[in-house]
């Protein structure tokens, strides 16, 4: 019987011809990732094992990005623990401030994650890399520790839900709107333990950036991984970046799916997720009058150059509303430079938004844009849980960069159409 792309990747890495959903396998890993929050715990566990080296110095990737540049003394200590470990073990892909970026923007850009790979990361948004046709999933620090030691991890082969998106997207509607719409439909546990395979005309039309945004939020539906089979756009993207071989795979026509969900997205409007779950979605036309205090444009979900271009298009010639703050965070140093070259940073500064060095900072309520009690923020990030961006009585509304930029101008949650 045929296999899905997820099953094929898992089977290859387990040295098996076939795998079936529910099967427990032990598989070899191409990349093991950690950050300044999760790696210190993993390092502690790794050191308890008493091993003198990691399984592969090139395949352990360490990115200080969450509370980096160091937000306080304790964060500095955690960063130091990771830096010391990286030095001791000769970790090739440790990215210091100045070279680092938000991990899930950085790894695809640096060509470290490739089609057909099996990747685990001690960060839930590791599922982002599925957009390149890899199997990538988030794990905890102990799994990361064991994987750094053995280069392997155990997996339960997930069932797959196939999503088919028919039709052409309207202007200002992108990958973020597609994935929020999907989470709104199936709920935050709608794909619990399952693979989410994204297909259809609207996915073919998305850029690689838009696809990374979609796969990034598979976890917000409880998914184990999100995945999109590579096409010519994927290959154009990875060809110039890859420094090793990769495998271009696709699901067989007779692959078995737990469910097939089809959407006609030709009339889809920009989507906003209301507090306090990503599944609380509304089309922009049904949002009503909601005033805001802050806008954040960035993160591993929407901190890529395409996102900044969308935001700049709307902010150009406008000012950020005088009662709100707008914070723009390019995902990596390369994205930052590209944004400068294209004149986007100028547009943001002219509009009186701030432009920050890459960091996860505000997304998880770390720093660089914490909300006070009762404040509201429109954010291109991925979670709007209670207290996610600051005070437990603050509110986060999730959207794509177009709605976020339009909202920054008007000081309330707004449609891009209202600004242009």
């Amino acid at each position: 019987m045929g296999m899905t792309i997820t099953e094929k990747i898992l089977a290859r890495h387990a040295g098996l011809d076939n795998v079936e959903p529910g099967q427990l396998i032990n598989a070899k890993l191409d990349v093991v990732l950690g950050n300044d929050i999760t790696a210190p715990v993993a390092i502690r566990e790794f050191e308890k094992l008493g091993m003198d080296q990691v399984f592969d110095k090139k395949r352990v990737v360490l990115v200080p990005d969450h509370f980096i540049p160091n937000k306080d003394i304790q964060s500095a200590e955690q960063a130091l623990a990771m830096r010391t470990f990286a030095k001791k073990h000769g970790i090739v892909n440790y990215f210091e401030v100045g070279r680092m970026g938000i991990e899930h923007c950085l790894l695809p850009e640096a060509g470290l994650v490739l089609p057909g790979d099996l990747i685990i990361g001690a960060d839930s948004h590791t599922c982002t890399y599925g957009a390149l046709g890899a199997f990538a999933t988030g794990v905890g620090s102990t799994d990361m520790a064991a994987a750094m030691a053995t280069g392997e991890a155990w997996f339960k082969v997930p069932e797959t839900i196939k999503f088919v998106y028919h039709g052409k997207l309207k202007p200002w509607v992108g990958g973020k709107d597609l994935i929020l719409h999907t989470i709104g439909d199936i709920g935050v546990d709608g794909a619990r333990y399952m693979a989410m395979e994204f297909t259809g005309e609207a996915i073919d039309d998305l850029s690689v950036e838009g696809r990374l945004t979609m796969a990034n939020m598979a976890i917000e539906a409880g998914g184990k991984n999100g995945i999109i089979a590579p096409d010519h756009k994927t290959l154009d993207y990875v060809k110039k970046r890859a420094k090793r071989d990769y495998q271009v795979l696709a699901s067989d026509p007779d692959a078995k799916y737990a469910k097939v969900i089809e959407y006609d997205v030709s009339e889809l409007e920009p989507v906003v997720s209301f507090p306090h779950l990503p599944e609380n979605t509304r089309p922009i036309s049904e949002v009503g009058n909601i005033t805001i205090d802050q806008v954040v444009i960035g993160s591993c979900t929407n901190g890529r150059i395409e996102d900044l271009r969308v935001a700049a298009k709307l902010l150009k010639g406008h000012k950020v509303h005088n009662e709100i703050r707008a914070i723009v965070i390019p995902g990596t140093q390369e994205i930052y430079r590209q944004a400068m070259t294209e004149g986007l940073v100028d547009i943001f500064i002219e509009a009186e938004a701030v432009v920050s060095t890459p960091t996860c900072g505000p997304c998880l309520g770390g720093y660089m844009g914490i909300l006070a009690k009762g404040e509201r923020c429109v954010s291109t990030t991925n979670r709007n849980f209670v207290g996610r961006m600051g005070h437990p009585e603050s509110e986060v509304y999730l959207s794509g960069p177009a709605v976020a930029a339009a909202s920054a101008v008007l000081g309330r949650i707004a449609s891009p159409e209202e600004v242009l």
Partner: protein
Amino acid sequence: MEFTGRTWKFGSDVDTDAIIPARYLNTSEPAELAKHCMEDADETFYDKVKTGDIIVAGKNFGCGSSREHAPIAIKAAGLSCVIAFSFARIFYRNAINIGLPIFECEEAAKDIAEGDKVKVDADSGKIVNLTTGKEYQAVPFPEFMQKLIDAGGLMKYVAKEAKQRA
């Protein structure tokens, strides 16, 4: 192993930001994390909870971030185990890896009320509500996961395997 304790009840989709807010993730010290366990769901939780107490929750417990600090905080706060209708995938994996006992049981998660006294037999997955006398059976773990649990978590299992290979 057997656990007996008072229960603390939570709803569905309790996320890891509620279990341990990210603003406290500038440390990974269990005792520090414990002080902020469930803080954004119940501000006084840590002060009220006693060693051996049990969390009972709805669907998708532990959704969101991969932070292992979440099960670590629960364990370090003295809770003996978590019973839920269902668990989010990464939390489930993390709990097993660090040796926080978890039990998936739809009926128990629905029936048990806050403050009930509950006894759990970790080996058989039998849950008894001592307040009402009602009994439940948790979903058994797959064989491999039971091995991890029996070994005392993933790292102990990996160490054991490495020793056997050598």
